Structure formats: C-alpha cells, structure tokens
C-alpha cells in the first residue's frame, strides 16, 4: 500500500485530532483541500477511514496506519532539524517533504540513527516503532553522548560531533578516535575517561560531543 501525500496528510490530521485531542472525528473543513478530493476516496478504498455525514472517522486499520504516518512525520522533523540543521518554517517544509520518503523500513533506519527519539522538535510524542520497543527491551542505549554513561561504564567511541575543527583534532590526537575503547571513570565535577592506558579530563560541553556506544 503506497498512499499519496495528500492521503498521508489526512491520516496525520485525523490521528492528531482523535488520538491527541480526544475528538471522535475530523471535520474535512479543517483540511487544506475540499471534502471531494480523491485522496478521501483513496483512503476509504483501503478501508482506513470512513466518511459519515461528511465527517472523517478511523477504521481500526486506519488508526494503525495513522500512527505510523505521524511517526514518520515527526522522525522527519527530528532528522531535518537535528541532523540537517534546518530550522523554522523552512525546516517544517522540508520535513513535510521528507516524511514521504521514510517508508518501507527507512523509518526504522532513521529512528535507530537518531537513537529512537521519543519527541519531535515541537515537543509532541513520537509513537514508538518496533525498533524502539526492541531497543528498550534489550537495554541497548545505542549511540549516546558520553554524558549519558555511568561512572565505570565501558564502551566504544562511535563518532565525535563538534563544529570546532581544532577541538576535534585535539581530541583525535589524544586518542579519542572512533573504534577505540573508552571507559568513563567519573562524571563529576568534570568528566574523566580512559582510553588505552591514559586518562583525560574534559568538561561537559566536550563530553556531549563525544558519542559512544555500549
């Protein structure tokens, strides 16, 4: 089943009013396109929604599909704002275009890369996917900043993310290189970690820029 962009937008809007605002149905007047748009027919064709007295209602399958769509939308927002660093209206627009590409498993990849985020940049919850549930049950933290480690925890450096090139080079020269083993020795008042047989102290600003995986 591959839905049109308009159809996905209707599903999202319906999911928000029903699941988050507690309404029973969506009034098509609230959509940008009229009630006789073919997108509604497309959705009823897949038995995802039904139209009663001109109002849009979920069918059970539609609720599930709506959740997945909203998940893709909010993941796209996170991706566009956090990773591409595009913000504001421009960011929203790009996210709207991007979400339609996140199907057929691409959402799982993006979700894992973003380390299973639970909220969108606007603070709304992102419905968890199977990958999130699995990560939670196995206790896999994925790739996290060093600040998330507990004292004594051991891991591997995944990547360094800093805009200051000089700092990154310095860190790399000190042995903070992707693939190296790292042990967080202490987290307060400064972060102390061990790479190889050397110990280093850094502040929390830098610790946030070293990403590690357990």
């Amino acid at each position, binding site marked *: 089943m591959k839905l049109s962009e308009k159809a996905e937008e209707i599903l999202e809007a319906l999911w928000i009013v029903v699941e988050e605002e507690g309404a029973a149905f969506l009034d098509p007047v609230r959509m940008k396109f009229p009630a006789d748009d073919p997108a509604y027919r497309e959705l009823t064709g897949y038995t995802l929604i039904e139209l009663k007295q001109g109002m849009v209602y979920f069918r059970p399958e539609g609720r599930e599909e709506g959740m997945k769509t909203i998940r893709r939308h909010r993941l796209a927002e996170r991706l566009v704002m956090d990773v591409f660093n595009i913000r504001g209206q421009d960011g929203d627009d790009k996210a709207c275009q991007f979400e339609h590409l996140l199907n057929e498993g691409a959402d799982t990849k993006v979700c894992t890369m973003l380390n299973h985020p639970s909220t969108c940049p606007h603070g709304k919850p992102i419905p968890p996917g199977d990958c999130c549930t699995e990560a939670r049950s196995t206790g896999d933290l994925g790739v996290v900043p060093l600040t998330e480690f507990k004292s004594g925890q051991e891991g591997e450096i995944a990547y360094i993310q800093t805009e200051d090139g*000089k700092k*990154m*080079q*310095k860190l790399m020269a000190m042995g903070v290189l992707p693939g*190296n083993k790292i042990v967080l020795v202490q987290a307060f*008042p400064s972060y102390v970690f061990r790479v190889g047989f050397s110990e280093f*102290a850094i*502040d929390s600003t830098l610790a946030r820029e070293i990403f590690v995986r357990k």
Partner: protein
Amino acid sequence: MSKCCNGIPETTTASSIVRKVTLVGNPNVGKSVLFNALTGAYVTVSNYPGTSVEVSRGRTAINGDAWEVIDTPGMYSIHTITEEERVAREILLHETPDVVLHVLDARNLERMLAMTIQLIEAELPVVLVVNILDEAERMGLTIDLDLLRQKLGIPVIGAATARKRGIEEIRAAIGGYQRGCEQQCFLYSRLLEHDIHEVAHLMRGEYLLSRRSLALLLLQQDEEIESIVREREGEGYAVVAAMVKKIAFERRESFHLDLSLERKEIVRRIINGVFRAPDKRVVTMSERMSRLAVQPLTGIPLLLAVLYFGLYQFVGVFGAGTVVDLLEGKLFEGLFNPWITGVVTGIVPWTVIQELFVGEYGIITLGLRYAVGIILPIVATFFIFFSFLEDTGYFPRLALLVDRIFKHFGLTGRAVIPMVLGFGCDTMATMVTRTLETTRERIIATVLLALTIPCSAQLGVIMSLLSKYPGALAVWGGCLMLLFLVVGLLSARILPGEAPMFYMELPPMRLPQFGNVVTKTYTRMQWYFLEILPLFVLASVLLWLGKITGFFEKLVAAMAPVMASIGLPNDAAVSFIFGFFRRDYGAAGLYELQGKGLMDARQLTVAAVTLTLFIPCVAQFLIMKKERGWKVAGVIGLLVSLLAFGSGYVLNKALLLTGLLT
C-alpha cells in the same frame, strides 16, 4: 609498507661542527628527565602538561663529538594546534636536527606511535625511545622492541629514564646514528595516496620536511606550513594552493578523521605482535591515589589538607616564620648588618656613599637583607612545595576539580596552575598564562594575577604583619576573595569571546623523586634571583638618589593626600613607592612601620589590602607588557591601581563606620 629511499639527503657529519639532537613527544613522557640525564644541565621537569613552554638547550659529548641537546614542549601531533606545539615544531622546521629523539610512553605505545609515523613520513632522522618501561612492566605489558625496530626501520630503544635505565643505549644510538635505507614508508589508502601525490608533485622548493608530509599538512589547512610553502614556491604557489583547495573541498566532510583513522590502522598493524597487554587490567596504587584526588568527596578534603600542610604550615609557619626569624632577625639584624656597616664606614669616609651601601635604604642593609633574609626563605619553601606537588601529578587533578567553578570567571580549570604559581611569584605565573588556550583566558588570568593574588613573599610578610590581629587577617582575606570573585565574574561578562573548553591529560600520580624536586626548585630559585636581585639593587640606588636629591621627600609629600584619603600616615607612602619595585618589598616596608608602632590595626589592614591589590611590581609589569602588549598591560595597570586605592578608600570608610578592628 615499502622502503622509500629516494630523496633522502646524505647527512654530512663533520666532527668539528656541533651536531643537534632534538627531543620530541607527547607531554609527560619523560623528555625533560632524559634531557637532564643527557646533558647534566638543569631544566624544570614537570609532571604537569604545559609548564615547559620554553625550549631548553644543553650540551653533551658523545664519543668525543659535541652535541647540542634541545628539549621541546610536549606535542601530540606534527599538525600543531596549541602554542606549545607550535614552539616544538619550530625546531623541527627550522633547525635541521641531526637526530630527532621521539620519546613515548610504553603504556600508550598504540596511541603515541601515530606521531612516530608522522615523523618518519616527514623523513626526519628519527630514533624512538620507548620510555617508562618500568611502569609498563609493572602493569604486565610486554613490548617486543626488536620486532618494533624491524617494522619501523628505525633505531628503537627501551628505557626508564627516571630510573636511569637505557641512558647509555640512547647515547650510543645518538652517536652512532646512520641514516639507513631501512626507514619504512607507510602507505595510506590509494585515494589518500593519490591526493598526496597530486599536491606533492606540484611542489618545487627545497624543504626540511618531506613533500609528502608537507602535502598532508597543507591538506589539514596548517597555516604555518602554508606560509612556508607560499614563500618557498614563489610564483608556483598559486597552483599548489589551488590543488590543496580543490582536494580539501572534495574531502571537507572528514579529512582529519579519515587521516587519523588511516594512521590508527597503520599503527594497529605495526603493534600487532609487538604489544601485549594482560587480560585483566592491573589497578595500580597510583590509580587508587588518583581516584581519591579527583572525587569531590575525598578530593576537597585532600585539597584542604594540601593547602594547610603545604602552604600554611610549611611555607607560612616554617618558611615565613622560623627561617625568616633566623635569617633576617638573627643573622642580618643581629650579626651581618652591624658588621658590614662597621666595615663600610671604616673604608669609605663619605657619608653619602656610606648611605648608598649601608644606610636606611642601602643596597646591602636593605636590598640584600630583604632579598636574602625575608624573600629567599619564603620563596624557597614555596617552590619546594610547588615543585613537589607538580611532580606528583596533582595539578591536572586539581584543575578538573575546580573547572566548573573557574568557568564562571571565564577560565577553565587549566588556569588553576598559573593561579597557584602566582602565590609563589606573580611574574612567573603571568608567564605561564601562555599555556592557556585563548587570548581571552590569558587576559582574565593576567588581570586576576595582577590584582588579587598575593605572591608568597608578600603573603608571608603580610601574614606575619597581621597575625597579631586575627580580625585584620580575616578582613584582608575576605577583601581579596571578594575582589577575585567580583573581578572574575565581571571580566567573564564584559570581555567578548566564547566560553573556553576544558580538556587535559591526567598523568599518572607518582611519588616525586627527590633529585627532580631539588633540581626544579633550584632552577626556579635561580630564575627568581636573577630576576629580582637587580631590581632590589636598582630600587636601593633610586631610593638613595631620591633621598639625597630630596625628590623622595617630595614624592612622599605629593602622595600625602592619597594616603590621607585612605586613612594612612604619610610614612606609608614609602611602602607604596617600594611596592612599585616589588610587592613584597612594599609589604616589608609596612613591617618596619608597624615595628615602629606607627599604625593601628585598621590602618594596617587598609594598607595591606591596598598594597596587595596595588599595581604589580616592575618585573610583573614588564612580563605583562611582553606577553600581552603595551595596550593591554597599560589598561590592566591603570585598572588595578584604581581598584586598589578605590578598595582601600571604601574599606577604610567601612571600617571607620562599623568600628570593626578598633
């Protein structure tokens, strides 16, 4: 890996010329200890990354040939980032060393070999010293030096320089160094090799480093190398620059990272079979100590204990109390001064000249007495304390402990070292601010040092001055701390610039070796005396001149309104005039006034606070000018003077109003 022999110039070895050997390596790998062992000269050995910013040079003879040994500040990579690293690389870039001794820490062979690779790649005459083998062995690590030698194709020597192990082998390796064909060439991925070639084959000039190495540095956007290449290539530079720009743009995403990862892979292949670690980590005594020092719960009590026993008991009570009493009171006042006065008045009949040497401000009776009787014991005990602490590796741990607090002052924990050193000598500390990363941090640290940190000599004198009035001591301490906080917080807000970042390597904690501590203290004392003794003599001469010409009295009279406004007797002006020459000198002047019973507790406190805050001594001012430039130094000097007298004024009024200390 392949041999690459082409393009290596024959090293001309005429025994009449002094040959050069340069020590390079990460901070804290024992370069300075090795330097001392090779030359027998004195250089400050520190277990604190970033105290040797200067290059030390010494001489030695190996097999009858004269060698110049050059010790450089620690560097992590040939692509330099910090000031210290730049200083170190200067030597490699401009001094054509005959042997480059790369010293590394055996325990961190894997991490540090990356720089060996870079040195070999630059076609420098590298000899590798795998140092600190003793501690590595204690941790159960084994290193196959023969295999390493084979794989690298350069001389490799195992050593534990702190235990004098391997020194003879190192000397032999330097003396017998022959540039061979075995030096290996480590190949990167085909893509990177292609990029290197694209840049290197465009270069026509003559360089001390290999083109391959220069090409890589250019691709890393190394500005210093850029300017060297621009100069050497002349008109051809435009083509090189264009190619560098093109490749750098293509690989903009991750050139540095890719390069580091490729080097890591090369190193991994080299140490495979060379380096073996036990399955179970051995937790050493030093690590346990280190934990105690860095955890706030144990670290803060430890810090307080260090301050109490080290600073208060050893420097304060013992140095400034017992020893000063003995030297100044018994030796100078009791024996030496009366004797020398007798001798001088016996030889020289003119009172004016007598005055110059043994008068009230005489070079001998005042200058020498202050320098040797009061300043020497205090400064010596402080430097013993500081050098001991430095060698234990405690300072980096202190730095991480206070980093959060120092961030409020626009500094990082790193600045704790100049601050602590400032309690010994502010001039020396101002010089060490060079190890801070940004100009902003350096300026803030310089201001705080100039204003609120009393040097040990001054501290000692003021402590004994105010010790009779515990309340006065508390007011004095409170005022300084308040100003430190206010000025620190304000300058962090006012000065433009980003908040600095803190990162620091923690060297292993170790018990300092007696010899090293002595050497260090000696070097620092030597520096200190060469620095201050001429000033003391100069001050005595100027004061004498001022006195016989009557200028001095005029100056004192001119300062009278200022003194009156902060509630001090006229005579206190003398201390402030002294204070400009040396802070401690001024404080010692106050000591005399108090001895004569001319000042009460309130006046003493006001004078002590004002004098402590008062402009830095001539030496510190000159260093400020040297490190920060005229403009900044001038502004700081003015600001500090205004703040000093302003605070004195406010404090005097406050004390009068509240009736405290009366």
